[in-house]
């Protein structure tokens, strides 16, 4: 804990005047950029992109030679725990963790205390982010008061306050009629509704996905239908009402098929998938002797088997699943240090998302780097119908620098979250976040790459 605090207390540099990012390999599918170029930032915006830009024009220089430069990532699904549960995370530590993973915008789910179901809380979170955060925070407001699934929240006022979408985060809206009316209402406001597809009667007291490993370990199972049945119900409602509905996380092959079916019918639905569902399976819970019952792999929705993972990868490839979202869910370290049944569900995901996905999907040859970057930048922006901060002249300078292709251990030193419940701790990964700039200001600089701050030439 002291180590964690020491890390988050690292000074953040302020940018002055013009910044030149030199020698990096720029990759941005939107701007159709894929090659080595320098990038000049003035007043928080990209002012010039080109080869051999004159360093004399810049007040400060970032040496990005040998590194990739991507547009800053957008996460549609994360828990920052503020207000209310700041023992495991707050907006300051959460945004630092986001920046350490290359994210420059994160959506914060409304499972706060008080619940983010009023304009006051939305404004509070935005204010806190402006004061203590280092990247952009977009509060997703609750669609029903108190996330209780009964009365609608004041959606128009929530939109005015800055919520780009509404949605209850703990489980599905249990009363389908309430959700149907919410969709009718939200459609007029142009607000998408985010859904956590889970039928609590079916997930019940389950601890991991139903299947052979749950049986071997003697852990109660969660059937795929706990998610798939709600995906079917809610997709039908979106089709009928014509309102935009986003499934925060899809985790199994049955849900993928239903999603595909309703998308083919023209339902205005989108969906995300987490890095852990794309990379890990329920084998992660089984682990090996001494590591079995690994609580860092206890997540909801639960990890599926290899056939689920394969279906999810295919769904990203054919566009059935739109984007990758972390579901960053911090938990106080001691709360995961217990038996599997008692430990809370959830894993932190900001810092590990790109390294884990790059290693499993790009380094393995399955995906192009461009596909992965698209799924973490352009694709989530499209769900919110937001213009992307791209690597082109005139755009907001929110970008991230990664080293790719060199294996290293994903250790605790990469985490900036207040929590440690990351399933990749100790894993070998082949991508490392080196620095992140938000609106031209450094939000993260890796001590390994920039020991003296991002604005000095590397040796």
């Amino acid at each position: 804990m002291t180590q964690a605090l020491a890390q988050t207390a690292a000074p953040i540099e302020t940018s002055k005047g013009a910044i030149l990012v030199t020698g990096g390999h720029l990759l941005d599918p939107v701007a159709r950029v894929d090659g080595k170029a320098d990038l000049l930032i003035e007043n928080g915006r990209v002012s010039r992109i080109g080869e051999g830009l004159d360093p004399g024009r810049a007040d400060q220089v970032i040496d990005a030679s040998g590194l990739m430069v991507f547009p800053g990532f957008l996460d549609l699904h994360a828990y920052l725990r503020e207000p209310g549960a700041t023992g495991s995370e707050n907006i300051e530590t959460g945004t630092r963790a986001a920046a350490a993973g290359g994210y420059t915008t994160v959506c914060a789910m409304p499972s706060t205390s008080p619940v983010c179901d009023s304009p006051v809380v939305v404004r509070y979170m935005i204010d806190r982010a402006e004061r203590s955060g280092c990247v952009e925070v977009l509060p997703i407001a609750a669609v029903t008061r108190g996330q209780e699934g009964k009365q609608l929240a004041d959606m128009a006022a929530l939109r005015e306050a800055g919520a780009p979408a509404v949605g209850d985060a703990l489980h599905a809206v249990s009363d389908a009629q309430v959700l149907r009316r919410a969709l009718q209402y939200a459609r007029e406001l142009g607000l998408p509704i985010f859904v956590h597809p889970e039928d609590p009667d079916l997930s019940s007291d389950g601890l991991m996905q139903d299947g052979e490993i749950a049986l071997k370990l003697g852990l109660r199972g969660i059937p795929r239908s706990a998610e798939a049945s709600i995906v079917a119900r809610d997709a039908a409602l979106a089709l009928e009402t014509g309102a935009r509905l986003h499934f925060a996380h899809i985790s199994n092959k049955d849900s993928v098929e239903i999603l595909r079916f309703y998308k083919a019918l023209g339902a205005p639905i989108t969906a995300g998938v987490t890095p852990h569902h794309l990379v890990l399976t329920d084998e992660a819970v089984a682990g090996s002797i001494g590591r079995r019952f690994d609580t860092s792999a206890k997540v909801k929705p639960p990890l599926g088997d290899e056939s689920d993972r394969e279906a999810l990868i295919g769904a990203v490839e054919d566009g059935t699943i739109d984007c990758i979202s972390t579901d960053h869910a911090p938990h106080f370290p001691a709360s995961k240090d217990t038996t599997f049944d008692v430990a809370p569900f959830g894993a932190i995901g900001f810092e590990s998302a790109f390294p884990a996905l790059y290693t499993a999907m790009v380094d393995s040859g399955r995906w192009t780097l461009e596909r992965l970057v698209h799924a973490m930048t352009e694709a989530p922006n499209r769900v919110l119908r937001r213009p992307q901060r791209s690597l082109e002249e005139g755009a907001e300078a929110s970008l991230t620098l990664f080293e790719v292709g060199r294996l290293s251990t994903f250790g605790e030193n990469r985490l900036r979250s207040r929590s440690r419940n990351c399933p990749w701790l100790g894993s070998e990964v082949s991508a490392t976040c080196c620095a992140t700039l938000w609106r031209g200001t450094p939000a993260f600089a890796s001590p390994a790459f920039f020991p003296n701050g991002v604005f000095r030439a590397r040796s």
Partner: protein
Amino acid sequence: MPSQSTLQPPTAAGGFAHKHLLGVEDLSREEILLLLDTADEFKAGIVSRPGERLDTLRGRTVANLFFENSTRTRTSFEIAARRLGADVVNFDAGTSSVAKGETLVDTAETLEALGAEFIVMRHASSGACEFLLREVRGSLINAGDGAHEHPTQALLDSLTIREALGRIDGVRVAIVGDALHSRVARSVMWALTKVGAEVTLCGPPTLVPESFSTFGVRVTHDFDDAVRGAEVVYLLRIQHERMDGAYLPSLGEYRMLYGMDSERLAKIGSEVLIMHPGPVNRGVEVTRDVMHSPQSRILGQVTNGVAVRMAVLALLEQARSSGAEVA
């Protein structure tokens, strides 16, 4: 440790290289057979020299840590440890249902302070032993964790089958009942299939999902199909609260479909062994007359329980003193 006793565990090829006994899943066929052979030798001693106290574990402390009540298993471990010359500490870990994770960490600290070389634990959470082994230095023996494993019960049942039939390899065993919630079923399936028995698992589909075939068993929901040709019928305890989760309509219907009575026993054949890990719901899983029939091995396995637990403690001690670090 030098010993005057003839009852030291045999050192078979490969030996026993585990520091802990977490489950039967982790054991090889050879290790299971070594445990059973060792138990056989100890049993001979128990029968011929009942009051004997060996020095295999002299100077060692065995801590019994039972978060769930089980006088039978705890007493069996206690007797086994004392016969081997160990000091035994019984922890009152509390019987309340809230005695969960946090209590476990606290208890681990106490155990470390005590320096117990062996910790025998029963806990309501699957994986509780694996969790504790990251916290303590001693050898852990799983005496039942949630619905996961209960290895010493499976070893004692294997010993009972081998004594009665002379072999386990090729023996046809039907296991009937609530496998889903049963740690005994899981450990028994691992033990018997590893040693070569042909196991059929049977029960209502809500309590015996097809995925149990991953244990190397045949799964059926038809009692007659399961017990046809069986040499052993192993009945599992059915919990009364299963009606609440809609697993079963009623105990009456369960008895009608899966209960063992003398009529069914007669149909299977007179040699079949009837087993049950206890405690029995008389008249549900098995009728009173079947329980007391000559084929029944439901009662009177106390000696085998002690012998098996002596074998486990002795082999773990041997592995410890030879520096085995395999979990």
